[in-house]
């Protein structure tokens, strides 16, 4: 059974249909890639799944439970973690303290027995996992001075510390160098290996297609193509939508 079912979701903003009648099933422990031109409704769909926007129509089921109408924090606590496209960490806090917030969430507290363990240590462990050099000063630096690459890693670390089951990564690779992307890819593979599900919205098609199990293509708020990466690559309609973008 699909872990996440999206059924007939529609949302319009003042006459513009941002998402129109979208239905997708996400299978457990797979990586779903979502691609499409800017403004085609990908982020809106993510906002709907995570509860930030209420759709006009349609429903979303997580393990058979309806998500529409639940506030974002409840959805997060159910196990759907979401990384933002525009990274805005908690700028006033040091990097490792950034993780104290998700570590204080209901989900983490209930899974770790409600105790107040050494959160700082857990946070530092997770940061090391996503590539913060433990023995350097980087994890202790205030988030506002961290470089872009580290902020993206911090987003990932947040989802890991939440013990999410579905990782929704909204353009995680945007603005990163090839070297940085290659160093983050293994982390995503590890997340998959641990039995989690990943949904990636991405413009870096090359990297995405290497790890994706299934890819859907958005244009004007609709799914125009759905299939294995290979099929998508060869599809004419997709090429037209992505005209000018080298695949």
């Amino acid at each position, binding site marked *: 059974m699909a872990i996440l079912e999206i059924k007939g979701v529609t949302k319009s*903003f*003042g006459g513009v249909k941002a998402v129109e009648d979208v239905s997708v099933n996400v299978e457990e422990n797979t990586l779903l890639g979502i691609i499409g031109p800017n403004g085609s409704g990908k982020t809106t769909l993510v906002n709907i799944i995570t509860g*930030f926007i209420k759709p006009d129509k349609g429903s979303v089921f997580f393990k058979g439970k309806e998500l529409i109408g639940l506030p974002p924090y409840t959805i997060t606590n159910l196990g759907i973690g979401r990384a933002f496209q525009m990274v805005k960490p908690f700028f006033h806090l040091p990097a490792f303290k950034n993780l104290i917030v998700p570590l204080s969430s209901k989900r983490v507290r209930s899974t770790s027995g409600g105790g107040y363990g050494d959160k700082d240590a857990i946070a530092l462990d997770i940061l090391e996992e996503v590539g913060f050099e433990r023995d350097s000063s980087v994890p202790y630096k205030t988030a506002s001075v961290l470089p872009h690459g580290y902020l993206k890693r911090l987003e990932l670390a947040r989802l890991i510390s939440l013990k999410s089951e579905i990782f929704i990564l909204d353009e995680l690779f945007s603005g990163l160098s090839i070297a940085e992307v290659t160093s983050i890819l293994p982390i995503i593979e590890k997340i998959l290996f641990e039995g989690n599900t990943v949904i990636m919205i991405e413009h870096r098609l090359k990297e995405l297609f290497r790890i994706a199990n299934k890819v859907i293509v958005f244009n004007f708020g609709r799914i125009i193509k759905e299939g294995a990466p290979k099929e998508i690559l060869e599809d004419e309609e997709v090429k037209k939508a992505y005209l000018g973008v080298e695949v």
Partner: protein
Amino acid sequence: MFVYGLINSAVLALMALGFNLTFGISGIANFAYGAIYVVAGFITWAFINHLNLPYAVSAILTIIIIGIFGALVYKFIIKRIRGLVISEVIATFGISIILLELLRFIGLIGFKYSLPVFIDGSVEILGVYVDIQRLFIIGLGILVIISLYVFTHHTKTGLAFRGIAQEEHTSLSLGINPDRIASLSMGMGSALGAFAAIVILPLGTITVDSGYDVLINALSVCIVGGLGSTFGVIIASFIIGYTQTITAMYLAPHWTMIVSLFAILVILVIKPSGLLGHQKELEERV
């Protein structure tokens, strides 16, 4: 009642437009707006009574002086703290109390300060007498709105205004100088305030305290209308204006404030970004 509700709305709209213009373009909440309004009234009064200038000349001079003053305030004060919203508010509020209390200190208190009306007399409309000045307010209000529209949609500076308002960074890359635009917007906002003062003040006397009232009025109209939206301001001033008139008519005048504040509250709870601020809804309400 219909007519006076209309007038009340027009007065509110005129008061709010200047504040709204500045805020909409440069994001500066000009808390000195009320003070500028009052100062404009006194300057015109001084021109007429001490320099014996004709009314029209002194009005135009006042508008120009106040406009320049607004731009200077931006250049010397606000520019240095641009982006620190709280500091901007505190600084402009500081300017406001300096201006108002200075006026009070000079001794501009009492009941003798009032501007002459444009044309004396009154006409009967729908069974009630309305003085011509009030009709002027409606007419000039409409005129200002139309000319603002033309300005922002058909002139180069106006288009630059809209550009900055919508996307500051992109406009920067297109060679629009945001400081120039912001100081212009401050200047124009203040000039509009002065204009409103000259049109509205002949209805009564010029008092220092009304500076604070004007600010509160402008602020609430702008918030209800959705900050920065001209059409929102118009609609909001109609809502608040008519609410006030109707309450005063059928309930009692001392309920007007409560009812209009309550209306604002309700609108904020239902539609937090104001009536016409829907594109920003997500940002204002999580």
